[in-house]
């Protein structure tokens, strides 16, 4: 049995690892795999589809690897063909060029289609009017402004269920990124730029949100929560927040822009142009003296997308 020692060791190890894996994932909640909104749901289906199609190649490869290693090992050479010069086979080569090309064609087409259908800038298909939320990434907190509702909040993002949320996202911080895994797509938040994102929650609940791009010491603690509420609950939240003693204006913005962490706080919104002011703070530098005067708030910010 000594010569099969290695095989036994490998087999036992694989078995142990599989068991360990099962024990680990049992009962765990995966935000990305148990999505709470249409965007994340589409992205999950896409993952499963792409993964499954690749298994068509990967599984046979693993089987062949083990089979060939076993069958053609030096100790076995009495029982099998040894052909040291055999190094060509047109049909086999056609197969392993052709099948991957086909798979990539399928995946490539899928990638093209979904890059467009799941484009963060694309408005969602819904009869419900979208809710506008402006997002500003700060050192090390998230400011959410609801310009049409007269409220703002830090690290707390209540939204109504089954309503598309249209985010415009900027920053006054090193490059950050806005991500709610349960709802889908993340996008970068950059100084002087305005990104867009469209998400929707299809049931109520609390969904954690994160910053995915390192932006300094407070990076790990720059978390927020999405509170998807029923329309009634959401409306009452807006109403009570408008009575909040906290005011969100330029002075408060200045204060909270200082580096540091914050607890969830809500505000009555006093200045509807705060977001534009944040964007303009850095966008000035990209303008010539001709368009520095009288510019900006008329600009269609959505054209300030990437390169």
């Amino acid at each position, binding site marked *: 049995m000594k010569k099969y020692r290695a095989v036994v060791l490998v087999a036992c190890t694989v078995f142990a690892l599989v068991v360990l894996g099962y024990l680990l994932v049992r009962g765990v909640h995966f935000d990305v795999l148990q999505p709470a909104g249409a965007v994340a749901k589409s992205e999950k289906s896409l993952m499963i589809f792409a993964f499954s199609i690749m298994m068509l190649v990967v599984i046979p490869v693993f089987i062949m690897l083990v089979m060939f290693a076993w069958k053609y090992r030096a100790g076995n050479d009495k029982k099998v063909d040894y052909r040291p010069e055999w190094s060509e086979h047109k049909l086999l080569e056609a197969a392993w060029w052709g099948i991957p090309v086909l798979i990539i064609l399928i995946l490539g087409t899928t990638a093209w289609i979904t890059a467009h259908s799941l484009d963060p800038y694309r408005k969602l298909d819904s009869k419900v009017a979208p809710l506008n939320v402006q997002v500003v990434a700060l050192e090390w907190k998230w400011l959410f402004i609801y310009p049409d509702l007269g409220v703002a909040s830090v690290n707390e993002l209540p939204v109504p269920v089954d309503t598309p949320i249209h985010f415009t996202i900027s920053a006054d911080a090193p490059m950050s990124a806005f991500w709610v895994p349960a709802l889908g797509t993340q996008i970068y938040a950059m100084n002087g730029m305005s990104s867009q994102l469209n998400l929707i929650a299809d049931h109520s609940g609390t969904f954690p949100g994160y910053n995915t791009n390192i932006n300094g010491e407070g990076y790990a603690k720059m978390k927020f929560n999405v509170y998807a509420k029923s329309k009634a609950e959401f409306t009452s939240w807006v109403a009570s927040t408008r009575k909040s003693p906290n005011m969100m204006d330029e002075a408060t913005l200045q204060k909270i822009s200082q580096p540091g962490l914050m607890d969830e706080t809500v505000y009555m919104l006093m200045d509807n142009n705060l977001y534009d002011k944040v964007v303009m703070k850095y966008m*000035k*530098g*990209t*303008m*010539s*003296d001709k368009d*520095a005067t009288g510019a900006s708030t008329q600009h269609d910010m959505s054209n300030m997308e990437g*390169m």
Partner: protein
Amino acid sequence: MSKALEMIAKRDKAQLGFWLYLMTDCMLFTSLFATYMILRHSTNGGPGGSELFSMSFVLVETLILLTSSYVCGLANLAIHNGRRKEFVWYLGATIALGIAFLTMELTEFGKLITEGNGPQASAFLSAFFTLVGTHGLHITIGLVWAAVLIWALYRQGRHEDILRKFSLFAVFWHFLDIVWIFIFTIVYVMGVK
């Protein structure tokens, strides 16, 4: 291998190696050009190319550099025909014209800086100074190289060695000329429009 064949092999390798280095230098300039293209309108509320560039000034600079390339070509002919004194004159003229070019460029830079339009004023100016300045740095290195070559000649270096080293210099100098044509077009001509 015989000595002659060895020298040819050595020159061959050096030339291949140097051309490859020039290709990498090309990639460096490409990166700087790309950066300039992206940042050329970001003037931070200040002046842009149309306000700052003087086309007649740049035209003179260009003519000086092109002439220096021509003269370098004459030096090349001279050394290949063994006319060492002529070679030194033409190489000296190349250096002189190079110095004239650099002087003009430094004058332009100096004027911009004293007016408050230095590289710290805006992204456009950072990109301008860096792109044009990197070219100027390469010109400076070329001038030092040419001077060292003249010194090598006076040290009675081996003719094949001088030939090999000068042929590399000549390629370098012409390459810088080509880069300047791109700068002239992309930075100055397109900037002034």
